[in-house]
């Protein structure tokens, strides 16, 4: 009798152990959570509760009329050197402005497939020596311009679907989608040096979980990547090593896309999540992660910025944007962002 009970316990424990291994390690793939492949030496976990500090944001700043008159549909805003660069989908061009909003020049003067023309701008970065790189999604090109004159120089054909760019030292790091290697490193002549960045399992099939933003740390060696639909900040060096990983307050893990029927085709759609990261910015020793939160009715609720120490990945505090926005640029005493609805550049005093 006793032997039978012990045998029964042993069998039951084997079954429980097997089931728990399958569940904990997601062997059956039934969990909606995707397994993160890269592992840094240490995962830094941000607090679950944010520390809100609205004293960061000061008064609205009235920018020069140029920026309001020239930008039709601003979809990306970045700071390169000391100037503001706006991707304008209204006339498919890139426009640069001073930090006061005075117009400087336009890159790409018409929409098209010709040299220096754009079809679908995705990401730009500037190298020392005044070279501006701009990725075009439709043309599958990385186009090179003289940043001081706006002159088109050359272009490089790319084989991936481009998303974002950043410059790290004298290299360009391109962020791609629908590929197993998310990051492509180019030299100043547009030559591909290396590629890396396998973040989650079955990356191509699950790509909808991965899109986000990249930004240079500013030390010439490292950059940060944040997916838009998962609560991570990945710190990489230019050689492809993950040096640090931060788990941000929202604790949203990578999820499998949802498959929906569309006519005769099944389409992968991203899973609905409450917080979506849209932009990274660096100023001094701080990393600014901008995101938008949805309310319980799935409507856009508010946009906010989390502030981290760029050297340690430690979460510091957060503040809300004055209105729904996207693409944040930080300077010493100013915050610039694109309004979500009117797609215009706005500015506020910033008290860092």
């Amino acid at each position, binding site marked *: 009798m006793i032997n039978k009970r012990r045998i029964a316990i042993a069998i039951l424990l084997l079954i*429980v152990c097997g089931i*728990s291994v399958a569940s*904990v390690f997601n062997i059956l793939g039934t969990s909606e959570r995707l397994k993160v492949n890269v592992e840094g030496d240490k995962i830094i976990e941000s607090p679950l509760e944010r520390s809100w500090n609205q004293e960061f944001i000061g008064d609205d700043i009235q920018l020069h009329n140029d920026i309001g008159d020239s930008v039709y549909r601003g979809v990306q805003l970045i700071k390169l050197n000391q100037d503001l660069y706006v991707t304008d989908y209204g006339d498919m061009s890139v426009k640069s402005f001073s930090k006061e909003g005075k117009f400087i020049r336009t890159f790409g003067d018409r929409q098209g497939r010709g040299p220096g023309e754009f079809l679908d701008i995705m990401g730009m970065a500037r190298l020392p020596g005044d070279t501006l790189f701009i990725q075009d999604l439709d043309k599958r090109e990385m186009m090179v311009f003289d940043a001081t004159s706006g002159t088109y120089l050359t272009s490089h054909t790319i084989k991936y679907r481009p998303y974002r760019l950043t410059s790290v030292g004298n290299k360009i790091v391109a962020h791609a989608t629908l590929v197993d290697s998310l990051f492509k490193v180019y030299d100043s002549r547009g030559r591909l040096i290396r590629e890396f960045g396998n973040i989650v399992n079955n990356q191509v099939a699950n790509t909808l979980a991965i899109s986000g933003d990249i930004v240079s740390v500013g030390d010439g060696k490292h950059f940060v990547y944040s997916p838009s639909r998962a609560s991570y900040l990945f710190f990489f060096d230019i050689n492809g090593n993950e040096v640090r990983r931060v788990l941000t307050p929202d604790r949203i893990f990578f999820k499998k896309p949802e498959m929906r029927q569309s006519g005769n085709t099944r389409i992968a759609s991203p899973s609905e999540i409450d917080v979506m990261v849209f932009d990274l910015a660096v100023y001094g020793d701080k990393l600014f992660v901008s995101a938008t939160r949805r309310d319980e009715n799935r409507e856009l609720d508010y946009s906010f910025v989390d502030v981290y120490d760029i050297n340690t990945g430690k979460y510091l505090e957060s503040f809300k944007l004055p209105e729904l926005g996207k693409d944040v640029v930080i300077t010493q005493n100013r915050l610039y962002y694109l309004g979500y609805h009117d797609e215009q550049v706005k500015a506020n005093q910033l008290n860092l």
Partner: protein
Amino acid sequence: MKEDILRYGSVSLAVVGTIILIVLFGISSLGKILEPDTSIVFLNALTGLSETWSRIILVFFITLEAAILFSIILFYNKKWPFYLAGSVLGLFVIIVGYGIWIDVEELCGCFGSIIESTTVNGNAMIRNAVLASLAFLIPELKD
């Protein structure tokens, strides 16, 4: 008469306590199987080990809790399953206490998705301590 009442009360308390332990360990192990992510994050924060090792530790704890559950059910007349349950609950008191000491902010994921996860705080320590005491007491009450 008095002795009969005391005896009846002791046995009833032992039965109720046993049922509580069975439910507790059942929900705890099943909850972690159904939703392991919170526990993995907690163990990672607590130990500083990699996610892989946190998963391995979690599998160990799930199996341990299941072993206690099955032992209590199948060896109800014995004392050792209850002493084992009390010891493990005492271990959980130490783990929670350590988590409080190093200021872990994570949810413990103690019951997975079945019961909303508790934070690592004094209440969790007290809960586990009371249950550990009950587990050690049940064999005495049955006698």
